[in-house]
């Protein structure tokens, strides 16, 4: 049974609290018990508790599959990009290096690329993925378009990303502010200047020194 079309996956980094419930729960999934296929990125703990859950975005044209010399990575008809097929994967690491979102990881013990398959064992039988079920702050949300629009009136889902010259559309959506553009220019979103400078002063941090924070 495929993943139902009516249900989609939404990631809202603004809600992430860095608790690792997604990572811990992912390793409880039957298809890869003991291994987490999601990772939690800590951006710059010295300056912020901001963290981001990194799941596979399930690209419409997956770069990982395109660069795979063994044709080991398949995208099923329902749009889910699967882990590398064991008999084919030659553990060359191309996919790991090429993915613009930094998702696939090499399981060196198994000589196999493993990644999030959107809890195929769960979503294909009508359950939510493990990470989106447990996520305490619902930074990871799985449900219908109607539900997300009702629950998140001040945000909007986007699924088009620009990495330099490469434009990618994905099955997984990222929640951004309602007034944002419909495609995310990834470099600009992280407020990196052309010279790679860090973002400007955070007003919340300035409050630590007695400034007004709002």
């Amino acid at each position, binding site marked *: 049974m495929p993943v139902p079309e009516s249900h989609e996956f939404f990631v809202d980094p*603004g*809600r*992430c*609290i*860095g*608790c*690792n*419930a997604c*990572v*811990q*729960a992912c*390793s*409880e999934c*039957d*298809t890869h*018990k*003991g291994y987490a296929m999601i990772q939690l990125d800590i951006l710059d*703990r*010295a*300056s*912020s*508790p*901001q*963290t981001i859950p990194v799941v596979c975005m399930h690209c419409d044209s997956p770069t990982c599959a395109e660069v795979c010399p063994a044709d080991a990575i398949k995208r099923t008809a329902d749009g889910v990009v699967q882990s590398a097929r064991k008999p084919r994967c030659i553990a060359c690491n191309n996919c790991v290096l090429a993915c613009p979102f930094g998702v696939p990881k090499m399981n060196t013990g198994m000589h196999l690329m493993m990644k999030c398959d959107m809890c195929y064992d769960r979503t294909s039988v009508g359950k*939510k993925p*493990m990470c989106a*079920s*447990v*996520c*305490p*702050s*619902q930074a990871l949300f799985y449900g219908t378009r109607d539900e997300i629009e009702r*629950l*998140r*009136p*001040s*945000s909007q889902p986007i699924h088009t990303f620009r990495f330099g010259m490469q434009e990618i559309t994905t099955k997984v959506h990222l929640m951004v502010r309602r007034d944002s553009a419909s495609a995310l220019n990834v470099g600009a979103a992280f407020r990196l200047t052309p010279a790679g400078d860090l973002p400007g002063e955070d007003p*919340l*941090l300035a*409050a*630590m*020194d*007695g*400034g*007004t*924070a*709002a």
Partner: protein
Amino acid sequence: MPSTDASPAFTERFGPHPSRSTGPRLDPGAVPDRAVNTHCCFCGQQCGITLLVKDEEVIGFEPWMEFPFNQGKLCPKGVKRYLQGAHPDRLTHAVAADESAPGGFRPIAYDEAVARVASEIDRIQRAYGPAAVGCLSGASLTTEKAYLMGKFARVCLKTPYIDYNGRLCMVSAAAANKKAFGIDRAANPWSDILETELVWISGANVAECAPITTDYVWQARERGARVIVVDPRLTPIARTCDLFLPIRPGTDIALFAGVLRLMIENDWLDHAFIRDHTIGWEQVAASVEEWTPRRTAEVTGIAEGSIRKAAEWWGQAKSSFLLHARGIEHSSHGVANCLGAIHIVLASGRIGRKGCGYATITGQGNGQGGREHGQKCDQLPGGRDLANPDHRAYVAGVWGVPPDSLPAPGVDAYELIRKIDQGEIRGLLSLCFNPVISLPDNAFVRRALDKLEFYAAIDFFLNDSARSADVVLPGSLHEEDEGSVTTAEGRVIKINKAIACPGEAREDWRIVQDIAKALGRPQGFTFDSPGAILEELRVASKGGVADYSGITYERLERENGIFWPCPAEGHPGTPRLFEPGSWNAVAKGSGPFYFPDGKARFVPAPYAPPAEVPDSEFPLILTTGRVVSHFLSGEQTRRIGPLVDQCPEPFIEVHPRTAEALGLREGDLATAETRRGRCTLPVRVVRTIRPDTIFIPYHWPGTRSANQLTIAAQDPISKIPEYKACAVRLFKAAAPSNGDA
């Protein structure tokens, strides 16, 4: 002085060993024999969870999507909680102290252990009187067990000395709520957070200590609510808030007073509510006159502009929900801090209505139910008062004993330790309390416990305090017993048994009853199930403020919990307190609050600084707290491998400016030293903490314990210790701590 750490031989035998998924827990083909809907064993939110059982072992979990509070959501502790069962450290038989045995304890038969506990209690009580034996119990116990412990102390042991670890948790909020509202419970269900336009969070690291509450707060924000966070650290819930007030630890009353003064100055008051539903306003209004924005800013360390903005938002809001937790409660003036919060709520008139609320976020699993039915030193079931003759007579009648036979109120948990130190208490029975890790100035606590003539502990692991015990009886894990608990919302819920106790381990209530029987005092301790205890508790609580008389297990399961008070089987329960026109057992229709006149009280809350403030010798402020992957003294979570991986060791958070002045860099070992002790830990240099404050999480024992440093100053009313502020100095360490403080 020898190290305060456990010996290698002890650790080898009793842990903590981090457990990991193996066997059927790792086998995707394992088909569970059954799935049991129950709740998480950790914090006061009590998330619903389905445990999967195979061959009498919990092998995993499934999110319980239908339970209304969390709808499947779980934090990492809940996800990995199942790994506490079938654990190599699990006590499956009783042990007795024996220096010649590996780790210092040898196994003994259960019956022999119970007989020994009873004979020692009997010997000490015959020699020194009934009050020479004390009990410590806890708020992670089910309400049935908590009730039984209170009854056991008063009726079986006839000792006044019982208290519980809720003393370290929510007693300041409880006392303030009783003074202001006449009842100690969250005023609103969490669903009211979703309906509000302003959320004020004071001293609550919501994202790490009550993670599921985050979704309520951010769902409110999604619907347009603004969020104000008051905390000395920029916590994950503060990261995206609308207004962040980085307060100097221990100065919360000043902030609330400053806000109230601005509310008065700008006439942001609900005059009709104050006139019709409160008393004491004039005195409190006059008392905040001195709290000008400038003075408030000086004392709290918050910018004047931020204070004005907070008052403006709070003053002009149409609806609001104020939440607080240990950050304002763990203080030598914790009750006054909570009263300050209540002042700005009452002055706004925004309580008792949809979207208008106030609550403490109770910390422990049964922090609410565990503080209602008699394991507190001055309390009887139903929230009744042990010093009140009518209350004594009623409960004595239920228990079938003369009212005069009930002891007088005892003392708080820390004072109980002092009485051990002074030799007044010589025997101790401890259940669900780990005082050496969780009490402040814990070198003193260990010295006191080592003076006991006899110390018996009931636990499922051999906890760090019980290293000083003579006998440890093997108790039950949360999943090995049934019962009820009451959540932070005031919702009574059902805990279901998933598996049986292993080996000679027993349900805690059976062990307590076995001791009563071995003492030759079984009367009143012959319950055959937790359900039978609940039946008596329903009668004992009837007519009290915390009235459970309409609550049955069948209803709890069918209705997904019931909010107390629930005074009759046909009563729907009371999700929201203080609704206009509502009836309660104390006011009897004269008003919505739980006093005979039905009115809430403005109770003066004068400002006082923390008991110990920084000086030239100890120039910084130490504040302590939790991390998301560990719970309280860590006796469970430090044995669960994936949670240990997430946070293996404690650390010291320092602001970069302070770090630079001290020559400290990220990862350096630094020693934090107070007048009580010292502790050497790696440094995390972060700009998310005030420069005058350092933070250490408290979940670890021995030389890594933050409570080597904390001060045993206590609130005069609630007796809560001041974990959140004491004076400390910090310096670069040459080598790890070796306990020679």
